[in-house]
């Protein structure tokens, strides 16, 4: 675990100000005025219904366009909140999280009580915004159960809000909950390369679960995502040698690449022999500077 929780506690006001600047640059004057005034109201002990209706009403004002951010803005984000970048954020989501960060001015118990109430009654769009904001709220330690609940959601959009471009899970979830994110992402055909901290939190138990999941897919005559081998790589050993050979023999190049990348990241004693056998492909990987992210992106495009 990291000590980011404290950092985030102190910086949520700066993050709020950053979101405010971004909204100002992207919304028309009247809409920005509405959201800024609403935020001020929510920061000063609003009535319950004012909180609920303001939060629900955001998309009717802001629309739902996915926002673009410059490299400089991405860096600003990371400087205030390590490992966080506003990728795949829509205007209404940014607006909703901005309102909640203002509401946090009413103190810890009020903030936690009301945000839980909002979670409980959230509709699809609200749930997505709430989970995307996990990394930005003050008192992040308090949201572990919530994050795990989001991972259990049957709605892929909600699951992705927790899993993708969100540093919260890798920093706060225990191994069991973390492993569920990775396994479930594969199950719902959601990309792994968008999961923040994927490599850092690879573990032996997860590797075993993933290989068993691959066996299950193969038995059913179904394909396995090449990304599955990414967190398996560092734990490859003799036990999985037949599996990785099977992937090396797959007709699709992207699968072969994934097996080789997994081998290259492993300490498996038999890896040199297998790598040598596929020298041409290894050279292609080196020439093209192929990374796991490229494999993930290519598979995502091919799959859709």
């Amino acid at each position, binding site marked *: 675990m990291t000590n980011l929780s404290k950092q985030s506690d102190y910086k949520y006001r700066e993050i709020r100000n950053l979101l405010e600047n971004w909204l100002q640059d992207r919304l028309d004057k009247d809409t920005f005025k509405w959201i800024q005034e609403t935020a001020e109201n929510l920061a000063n002990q609003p009535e319950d*219904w004012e909180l*609920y*209706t303001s939060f*629900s*009403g955001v*998309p*009717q004002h802001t629309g*739902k366009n*996915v926002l673009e951010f410059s490299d400089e803005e991405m860096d600003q984000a990371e400087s205030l909140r390590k490992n966080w970048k506003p990728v*795949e954020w*829509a205007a209404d989501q940014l607006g909703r999280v901005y309102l909640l960060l203002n509401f946090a001015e009413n103190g810890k118990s009020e903030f936690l009580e009301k945000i839980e*109430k909002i979670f*409980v*009654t*959230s*509709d*699809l*769009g*609200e*749930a997505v915004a709430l989970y995307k904001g996990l990394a930005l709220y003050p008192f992040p330690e308090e949201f572990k159960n919530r994050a795990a609940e989001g991972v259990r959601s*049957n*709605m*892929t*959009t909600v699951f*992705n*809000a927790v899993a*993708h471009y969100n540093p919260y899970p890798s920093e706060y979830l225990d191994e069991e909950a973390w492993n569920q994110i990775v396994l*479930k992402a594969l*199950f*719902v*055909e*959601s990309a792994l390369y968008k999961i923040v901290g994927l490599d850092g939190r690879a573990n032996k138990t997860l590797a075993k679960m993933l290989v068993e999941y691959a066996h299950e897919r193969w038995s059913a005559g*179904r394909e396995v995502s090449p990304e599955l081998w990414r967190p398996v790589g560092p734990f490859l050993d003799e036990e999985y040698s037949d599996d990785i050979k099977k992937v090396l023999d797959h007709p699709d190049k992207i699968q072969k690449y994934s097996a080789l990348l997994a081998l290259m990241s492993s300490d498996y004693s038999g890896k040199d022999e297998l790598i040598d056998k596929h020298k041409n492909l290894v050279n292609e990987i080196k020439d093209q500077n192929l990374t796991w992210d490229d494999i993930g992106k290519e598979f995502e495009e091919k*799959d*859709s």
Partner: protein
Amino acid sequence: MSDDDMMFIDPHVHMISRTTDDYNAMRKAGVKAVIEPAFWVGQPRTNSGTMLDYFSWIVGWERFRASQFGIQHYCTIGLNAKEANNEALAEEAMDLIPRYAGKESVVAIGEIGYDDMTKLEEKYFIEQVQLAKKMDMLVLVHTPHRNKKEGTIRSMDICEAHGMDPSKVIIDHNNEETVKAVLDRGYWTAFTIYPGTKMGNERMVDIVKEYGTERIFIDSAADWGHSDPLGVPKTAKLMLERGISKEDVKKVTYQNALDAYGQSGRFNEEDWLNRPPIDQSQTFSGNTVLRGGHRPLTEEELDNPDEDDLIIE
């Protein structure tokens, strides 16, 4: 089903009781959008927690499920008349309603009104009409199965006594006995094509021939009972066959419902006209929409399943 280019709205249907096959059939028949009024679920609720979960269900999971099959899902939120008779439940449910009423897919307060016409039913009907007025929302009124005419008149009296403009109220489940009074007082006048207990669609054809199409529209109210989620498109076809103009059919199966609920500002044609083709493996707002575990289907495959194929993959 009907002419290929016809679009339909089913402005009253309880999709939580229906299967994915129904969603498929509805989309293939031209249904673009549905409205799911909050109602009782057959088994009476015994505490407000199940009411909360139900409201969350119809603004959340059901809306998502519909989107996977290319149908835009909206709802109304309210305490139904039957369960208004459980006072302890009703009191707590009334506190929940404002937490849901402002959500983006909630197009009205409803369905509310009378069932047995008890004092408690009237109390919560009035409170909800007042809430709708305060929140500047539309009202969907359920008219009772028994003593329908009196219940309908009294419902309209209550709406007016509490300042609702009839143009902001939809009176549903009308029949030959109520239609004139409801139209005359300026309300949206909805009919439910529901076998056995409500309207049959041949009778509906006659009503349109007699009363025209202004402020009249139809729905299926399909639920867990013997009902038909294709009530709207089937009736459209019957109307065309029996000589009602396509323009008039469009009014009662699409346009009038759109005009009525469009007043909420949350029920917009663009939502379904600009829908990307379904490809369950595709991304939707940057996210994949499919719940996992099986091969994603494209819209073409969903539209043209091979009925004789015995293979389940």
